[in-house]
Structures are given as C-alpha cells and as structure tokens.
C-alpha cells in the first residue's frame, strides 16, 4: 500500500508537482496518465526517492520513506526505466541479478532466480544469460529491464513509460507478459504513461495529471463516463474514436 499526502516538488520558481495526494491499494495497478511535463514521472521518482520531495509525506506499508536509507528503500522497490538503463558492461544475468547481489544473496540463489525471471519474461535462459545488452533487440532489452526490476521480489514496482519506445506488436506482447507476471505475484504497481489506450487496458484505476496537479483519479469507466474537465474528456475521446473506427471497419 502506497500513500502520498500533499506531495509537492518545486524547482526554484517552477512547481513540477503540486500537493499530490493519492493512495494505491495492495495488489492494485494505478496508471498515472498525462502529457509530458505534467509531473507524472516526477511523482513516480519521488516514491523511491530518485527525486526528493519538497513537501508532503510518502508512506509505503505504513513506513515513511524519509525514515529509510534511500538505497535500502530502492532495493525493496522494483523500478522499470523509460530508457531501460541496462548496465552495458554486465551480462544479462548480472543485470537481472544486480539487486539480489546488492542484498547479499548467495550465488546459487541468484542464479536460480535469474533463470526464473528469464522464463517469466519469456526469454530463453540458456540463450540469453551471458549476452551483453548491445546484443539484444529493443523488446528483449525491456524484458530484461522488467526482469531486473522484479528480481529481488519487491512488493512494489514502479514503471516509468516502460514500453513507450517499442513498436506496437512488441509493446502489446510486453503489456500482456507484464500483466500476467504482476497478477501471479500480487504486486502493487504504479505505471506512468502518456498513452491513453495503454492506460485504459492496464489500469485498475487511472490518475490524470495536468500541469503538476492530479485532476482526476478513478477506474477507467469513471474517466470515460464522467470526466471532471474538458482536458480529461478530450483525453478519453481519442481511444473512444479509435474503438469506434475499428468497430465500423469490422462491421463493414
């Protein structure tokens, strides 16, 4: 369970996130949706303290994140980066096993865990284990990125536009893989995206951010049916029109 109360991030005169309050239930996937610069990534990074909030409190399972050492905190939270950020000098195995090794797991346990993770993200362990990141395709890289985020069995996983740079087919495949993995493990997740369709498909609830403020938070149906302002309405209109165009085509 993640709870944000009145969380604010200011850079000099610019306010990136303004008094954001929300809470994410155990096992839930919350999507933060918004245009670039709306503050959604900043909000996400404040949760594992990659960015320190200016004001407000963030609790995970009742513990204030400010009371925990940042690197300890981050080892307990999975994080999938927009740019993937695999370590180019390490093999796939060492990339996935990085957080477990920081936590001091023994070799055999790390090895077994890496195999499980490769299976889970649908990569062949024997073929992939010793490859370097520059020998992987974009989709394979992001699968490894997801595996790395989940390797230390975190209770919470944060995803920052993880599939944004992938081609539509790969993205679709990865979305499905991710949903399967998450449901099996029962993790709590926050997923940042600017893609409305992705938000509607994945999110248990969706929070819409606009110029640093959380303007609406609710299940997909609520956003589609009762948008609180014209911006949310416009956002929801796009997937609706796409769906209509598709159904018209298949009817014809």
């Amino acid at each position, binding site marked *: 369970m993640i709870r944000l109360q009145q969380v604010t991030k200011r850079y000099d005169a610019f306010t990136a996130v303004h008094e954001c309050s929300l809470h994410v239930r155990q096992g839930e996937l919350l999507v933060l949706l918004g245009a670039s610069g709306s503050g959604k990534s900043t909000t996400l990074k404040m949760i594992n303290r990659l960015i320190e909030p200016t004001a407000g409190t963030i609790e995970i399972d009742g513990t204030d994140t400010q009371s925990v050492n940042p*690197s300890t905190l981050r080892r*307990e939270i999975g994080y999938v980066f927009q740019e993937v950020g695999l370590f180019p000098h390490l093999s796939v195995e060492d990339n996935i096993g990085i957080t477990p090794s920081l936590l001091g797991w023994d070799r055999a346990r790390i090895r077994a865990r890496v195999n499980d993770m490769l299976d889970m993200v649908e990569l062949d362990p024997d073929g992939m284990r010793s490859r370097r990141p520059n020998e992987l395709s974009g989709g394979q890289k992001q699968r490894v990125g997801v595996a790395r985020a989940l390797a230390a069995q975190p209770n919470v996983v944060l995803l920052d536009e993880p599939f944004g740079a992938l081609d539509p087919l790969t993205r679709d495949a990865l979305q499905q893989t991710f949903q399967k993995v998450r449901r099996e493990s029962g993790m709590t997740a926050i997923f940042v995206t600017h893609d409305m369709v992705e938000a509607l498909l994945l999110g248990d609830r969706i929070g819409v951010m606009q110029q640093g403020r959380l303007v609406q938070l609710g299940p997909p149906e609520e956003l589609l049916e009762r948008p609180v302002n014209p911006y949310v309405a416009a956002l929801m209109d796009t997937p609706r029109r796409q769906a209509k165009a598709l159904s018209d085509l298949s009817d014809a």
Partner: protein
Amino acid sequence: MHELLARLPDYLGGHLRLSLSALIVGVAISVPLGVLATRRRALESPLLAIAGVIQTVPALAMLAVMVPALAMLALPSIGFLPAFLGLTLYSILPILRNTVVGIRGVDRAITEAARGVGMTPWDRLRRVDFPLALPVIVAGIRTATVWTVGMATLSTPVGAPSLGNYIFSGLQTRNYPAVAVGCVAAAVLALSLDGLVRMLEQGVKAERRWLTAGATTALLVLAVWSGAGLAYGSNFGGAPIKIGAKTFTEQYILAEIIGQKIRAESDREAQVLSSLGSTVVFDALKNGAVDVYVGYTGTIYANVMKRDPQHVDRKVLVQEIDHWMQQNHGIRCLGAIGFENTYALAVRRDFAKRYRLHTISDLARVPPNTRFGADYEFFVRPEWRTLKASYDLGSLEERIMDPGLMYQALDGGDVDLITAYSTDGRIEAFDGALLRDDRSVLPNYDAILLVGPQLFWDAPEAVDALRSLLGSIDARQMRHLNLRVDVDGRSPASVAAEFLANQAKIEPSGPPKPSPSGSSGQ
C-alpha cells in the same frame, strides 16, 4: 659502443625506477582526486585548473625548481627525489582529466538506473562508474606513461641517473652514438610500458586472466628489478662521496679525475652526478647532496657572492671566496687547480678579416644584428652586462645554444660570433680568431675545488686526496684533455684515468702540493 652499452643497466634501471614510481604515485593521487571531483562539483574546476597550470611549467624548469624547494624543506634535493616529485606532478593532469571525463561521460540513464536498483554511492562507483570509465582512465594513464618516460630523460641535470645521461653527456662531448642510444632506449621503454598498460587493460576488460597476470607480472618484475638497484646502490659500504659536474666536457673530466683519485687514495666509493645546472650544483653542495665540485672564481664571486670581481687580484679572490664560503655555508675552497677557463669571443677567420677584428673593441665595426651565439647562462650572467656596457654591444642579436653545438653553428654560418672557453679543446682545432678583452672587463675564472662541510668530518683522507690535485693541471693540459673527449671521441673516464696514470709516472711518490693559491693558468 661496448662502453656505452655497459652503462645501460644502470641508466635504464634508474629511468625505469623513476618513471614507474612517478606513475604509480601519480595514479594513486589522480584517480581518487578525479573521483572526488566528480562527487563534489565545486572541486572540479579548481583541481583541473591547478593540474593544468602544473602542466604548463616547462618540464626542465619543473625539475630544476624542485631542487631549491626540497632544500628549503631540508630534504634530499639532488637525485631521485626532485626528479620523482617533478614527474609525479606532471603525470597528474592526464590521469585526473581522463578520470573526470570518463566518469562524467557515463550515460545519465545508466547512473539513474544504478541508483534505481539500490546502489549506494560506493556501489555505484565500484560497479558502474569505474568499470565504464576505465577505458578513458587507462587512456589517460597511457598518455601519462609516455610523457613520464620521455620527461625522465630530463632528470639528469638534477642528479637522477636516467637514459638522459646518454643524451646530456653525449651532446656535450659530441658523442652522437650515445645520444642515439639514449633516445632509442627511452622510446623503446615508453612503448613497452605503454604496451604493458594496454595489455593490462585488455586483460581486465575481456576477463582474460592470463593476459592480466602476464602484464601484472611483467610490471612487478620491472618494479622489483629497478627497486633492487636502488637498495643495492644505497647499501654499498656507506654512502659514496658525491662529485658534482656541470654541463660541459671539462667538468665531466675533472669530476672523473676527482672520483678516481678518491677511490684510489681513500677507501671510499665515489659517485659522479653529471650534467647538473650551475645553480643546482652550488645548492647541492650547500645542503650536502654533493660533496665536492670544481667551481670558477669569477662565477662564484659574481653569481653567488654577488660582488664585482673586476680587477681583484686572483690570489686574493681565492682567499676571499674561501673566507666567505666558510662564514656563510661552512663550505671550504681548497684552492686553485691551476688553470683558468675564461670566456673569450670567437669569430670565423673570414669574418674577422672583413671587419678587421682583433679585439672586442673592434666589434664596434660589425653591422647591427650580427648574430651572437652563447651558452644557456651567458646572456643572464653579470659578465655579459659588463661586456655589453663596456664595449657597447647592445646591437648584437642574442642566440642561445648548447655549448656542444656552438662551433658547428659558427662554422656553418648560422652565427657570426660565439662565446668560447679558453680551455676548450676545440679552440686548437678551430680555424678562427679569438678576440682579446682589451679593456680587461672579464674577471678571472680560476678553477677551484669547493668542498662541502661533511667531507671534512666523514672522509678527511678524501680531502687529502683532493689537495694533491691543487696546482696540478695548467690550461694547456686542460685544453688537451678536453680535446681528447670533444674531438677524439674518448670517454671522460678513460681520459681521466690516462691523466692520473701519467701524473703518477712524473712524480711517483710526490707529496701533495698544498698551495691554496694555484699557479697561473696561461
């Protein structure tokens, strides 16, 4: 050639010892400093600026400055330490800069990922920043390696034996094979060390154990071998008596004569530190890094004592110097060796004919911008100021050059006028005219033996051996000895041995001549 190569282990060992220790300490200082600069942003610019300023100091000046600086701190100021410190300072910039650039150059997405997976700053440095920056850092180390090995040849004038000894003495004594041996050996050493560092990097990067192990072993063997030389040298039956020699042939020969004399007549070992700068050698004598050297009265009187040596009786000069040295530095002037080595001005015969030159006063007839070649010191010495003022020589165009090359430059017409030394062997072989100092403005330059305070306590028998050299070499003899080296291409050591053997024949058991005044040279 055989004689040249016999010295190779010594010079190469000294060179390697200097370069390796300077590099190792340079890496040990610069890499952590570079890491610090990337962690504390405010430090980056000042650190790089300081390293940059150090780099702009000319290498030779840097090494020379170490001598008085160390002397001020009462540390050994001649030999290994000043050269080592200078080279270490020099190696900092490339390594520091590449460390900073390498670590800064790590992709931001990767450093953020490193934080994101839960690395502490130390984990990040060890597991991500450092391995990714390594190729750039190693490139910096390799640059520093080549620079340091090259620059170590300049450590000869501060008394650290290196391959530079071949080059410095070779240039002075016109022994070009020696220069070539020094240059080639230094280049081969630079390339070999560079290759080893590269092998080490590749071994680490590709996790090829045998390559890493091979390169490490090779570097260790080199370090131990060069270090062993140091230990062996320093444990050899008490410290050797150190004889300083300035940067010209006559000084090499005299230092060899002194060394061989001490070895023969006392039970002490003697070591010649050759090619020391003129001020370096006096500083070295003051602080005990050198025990004895041959100075010249005019130089000491004007440059060290800062007095005007003109028209002072030469015997009085020697006594005054002894008195002043004893009072101020505890140094003794044992007396004159017998010859005088004064500055003279030399011109080509055709040039002398054209302008009817016999004396320095006649130079009033040469056109302005006549090219005047002189050694490194001459144009800043008081003698030149005096000459210029007395003979109105301000319109000459000053050209500084190595004394070993001056006659060649004069012959080839690159200059029209040079400084010559009255004991230079090449004067005899040279077809030209010497201009008389008709207004007697140049002081006397009697060669004298200067002995540091310790030697009187530590090795009185060596001081006795030195006394027997007083009054034993006149100008004609000195010119002849110089000629044997400069023109005949003999080594200073063999010429010195021959001289001592001849002397022993003339006076088989002759008593030492304790005359403190010396005989007239010319």
